[in-house]
């Protein structure tokens, strides 16, 4: 056999210092964010303003609340494709139990605001519990289970509104979804609280540790006596409830409850988690990463509007960014593996 040319130096593993390799999944999204901000700052006069910062934060809030629950799920090396579906269904449920304007032709059941909210919370909890049951008791892979749930949730939404649009939600929901506390929209505050709570639970509690361990090596977690079924059930329910709350606030934020209004949020929330660097293989990443991912997507979406780009091209660009994030995600995993052999 002839001599193989020296091509190993082309592989970045050679030159990259160890500290950077192990932090690749944290550094890459942060660097992307800085680069995007720099680019839009230079390319547009209207991008860098306090008002626009408020816009960006408001735009990512609904996604942010959904992404909190999804982070738990992805850390366990599972996936939840029903987040947007459950958000839509829960938003419609809360409107269904609220008095609507006479012009709205929905056969709804008006209840007190608190009762409507409780019923909505209970519905997303139940949908999450069904996901959990299918995954941990029947043994349906989460990808398929939540795909079915996506359809079921869409069905519930369709049955309740029957093609109509509802506008009114309980006052608590509409305050949190569409009003501001001083200059800060309530929805941003709620999203921040959810992100903070998610971070605290994942980092500082036993449950959070079990989530990482279950995602890192499920068999080892089982042999360590961790009740992985309970952990997986819990993350599916957390994801559904986060989605439900995002759905209720989203309805208030959009000002209407109707079929299919959350459709783009499935891809957005998964993108946020993955672009942020949380490993698709489980066990690595966290809410910090998700915040980075949310900001990257938020700045990107918002910035593209400021530079008058073809709105159809915008869709393509988002796809390319997601692909790049996936490449980095898988690559970061590999870097860590080479480092640890």
């Amino acid at each position: 056999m002839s001599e193989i040319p020296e091509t190993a130096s082309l592989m970045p593993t050679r030159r990259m210092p160890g500290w950077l390799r192990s932090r690749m999944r944290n550094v890459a999204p942060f660097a992307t964010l800085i680069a995007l901000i720099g680019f839009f700052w230079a390319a547009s006069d209207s991008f860098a303003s306090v008002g626009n910062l408020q816009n960006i934060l408001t735009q990512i809030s609904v996604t942010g609340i959904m992404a909190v629950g999804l982070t738990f799920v992805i850390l366990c090396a599972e996936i939840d494709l029903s987040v947007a579906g459950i958000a839509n269904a829960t938003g419609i449920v809360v409107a269904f139990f609220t008095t609507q304007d006479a012009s709205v032709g929905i056969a709804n059941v008006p209840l007190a605001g608190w009762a409507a909210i409780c019923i909505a919370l209970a519905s997303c909890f139940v949908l999450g519990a069904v996901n959990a049951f299918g995954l941990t008791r029947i043994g349906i892979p989460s990808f398929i289970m939540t795909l079915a749930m996506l359809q079921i949730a869409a069905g519930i939404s369709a049955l309740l509104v029957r093609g109509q649009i509802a506008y009114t939600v309980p006052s608590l929901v509409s305050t949190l979804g569409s009003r501001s506390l001083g200059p800060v929209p309530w929805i941003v505050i709620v999203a921040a609280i959810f992100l903070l709570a998610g971070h605290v639970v994942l980092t500082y509690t036993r449950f959070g540790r079990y989530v990482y361990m279950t995602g890192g090596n499920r068999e080892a977690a089982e042999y360590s006596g961790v009740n992985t079924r309970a952990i997986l059930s819990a993350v599916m329910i957390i994801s559904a409830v986060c989605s439900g709350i995002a759905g209720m606030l989203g309805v208030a934020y959009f000002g209407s409850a109707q079929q299919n209004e959350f459709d783009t949020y499935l891809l957005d929330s998964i993108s946020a988690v993955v672009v942020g660097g949380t490993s698709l293989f489980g066990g690595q990443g966290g809410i910090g990463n998700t915040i980075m991912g949310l900001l990257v997507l938020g700045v990107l979406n918002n910035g593209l509007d400021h530079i008058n780009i073809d709105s159809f091209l915008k869709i393509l660009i988002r796809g390319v960014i997601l692909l790049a994030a996936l490449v980095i995600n898988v690559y970061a995993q590999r870097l860590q593996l080479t480092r640890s052999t």
Partner: protein
Amino acid sequence: MPRPLLELSQVSKSFGGVAALRAVDFELEAGEIHGLVGENGAGKSTLMKIIAGVQTDYDGAMLLSGQPVRFLSPRDARVAGIGMVHQELSAVRDLSVAENVFLGAQPLNRLGLVAWAAMRRQAVEHLQRLEIEVDPGARMGTLSLGLQQLVELARVLFSGARIVILDEPTSALSPPEVERLFGLLRRLRDEGRTFVFISHFLDDVLAISNRLTVFRAGAAVATQSCAGTSKRWVIDRMIGAGHEKLEESYLADIALPRCPAAKTVLAVNGLTRPGAFRNVSFEVRAGEVLGIYGFLGSGQLEVAHALFGHPPASHGSIILDGRSVRLSSAPDARRSGIAFIPESRKMMLFGAEPVYKNMTITILDRIDRLWLRPGVECRIASRHVKQFHIRPPRVERPLSTLSGGNQQKVALAKWLTHLPRVLILAEPTRGMDVGAKDDVVTILRSLREQGLAILVVSSEPETVLSLADRILIMRKGAIVREFAEEPISKDRMLEAA
């Protein structure tokens, strides 16, 4: 003298500043079986990974048949005729034997589809030529580990490998299986194939190899013809002098001690899981180590798993401290006070997580209320790192940066922070060097003194003999003999099994 088939000169490799190989020279003659021995972390695996193209980033040169080569992937190495049979087999359990033999090289018909009949026929021929008696249609996962290993070897040979690296090939095999493997290796060697035989079982290495190379602390310290070389000499090179007590031969009689009159902690009655084990009954007393020995696949491993509820037995009763318990899942078993160390490190360790998190996962609910207390965890872990001589002694390091033997010690340590009622160990010393084995023996003896009931399950007679006070022999899923308060030796155990 002809040129060696494979020459490595001045090969060095370090991981994060820690030298794994220091300027190693290594030669492989065509048509020899070359033994490779050394303690865990001495550098054997790293060197073999370089040769097999798994580890691509190193200093030094490699010559194959006199030509300089540098493999950038395992495929490069395979193309050059170098194959490896890993200790933890990489066979695809859900495919048939024939498909495994042809893995990645299925014969195709004119339409570009897999030619199933031809594949099956060729697999039969190939396996027959190697005198491996196995049904090519059988699913790989249903075969014994020994047979899987032979099929894996067949696959590597079939892919055209001239040099085959065997990593711990005998650790999971029963004596007849070892004999069968050795017969095959000798025949293949005489046909001109070359083997590297890595093992902790020095008797096996000396029995099969033409030459052997001893590694110590990243350096090749000696290469010697095996004829006339004693085990004593090899051990001295491996770990230096003064370790005589570590490697006893167990051929002489060992007197099992008098059973203590302590109370029974664990009593098992008529435990059965169809297809795995049947009607297994025994008791383990406080301060006693009960050993269960059997050849691989005799059911002892499955009994151990059943006592941890993973998966549980279908019939029979388990009485713990006088109370009947139902162990239907691992969390149940852990809550009841049963600790279990399974047979493979992969099954219980978290590679990406730091050492301390690996150790405290089993006891989090005892040391924490609502919030985690990493400070406390690190203190507990540090204590164990000292007690178990785990190197490097840094609890924040990711587990995967430790060597195999040290990882094994972490696996043992994780259950011992809060003493369980019963400790079950499956193959506790598999893949360990003599020094690490001795550490395990010491640790288990001290646990026994503290009144723990310990169950050791193994297919290595030395392991059971060095640890147990009382020994049960299992054959084909049933207990066939008990040794207690009497002299016992390795050959008597093998005879009973």
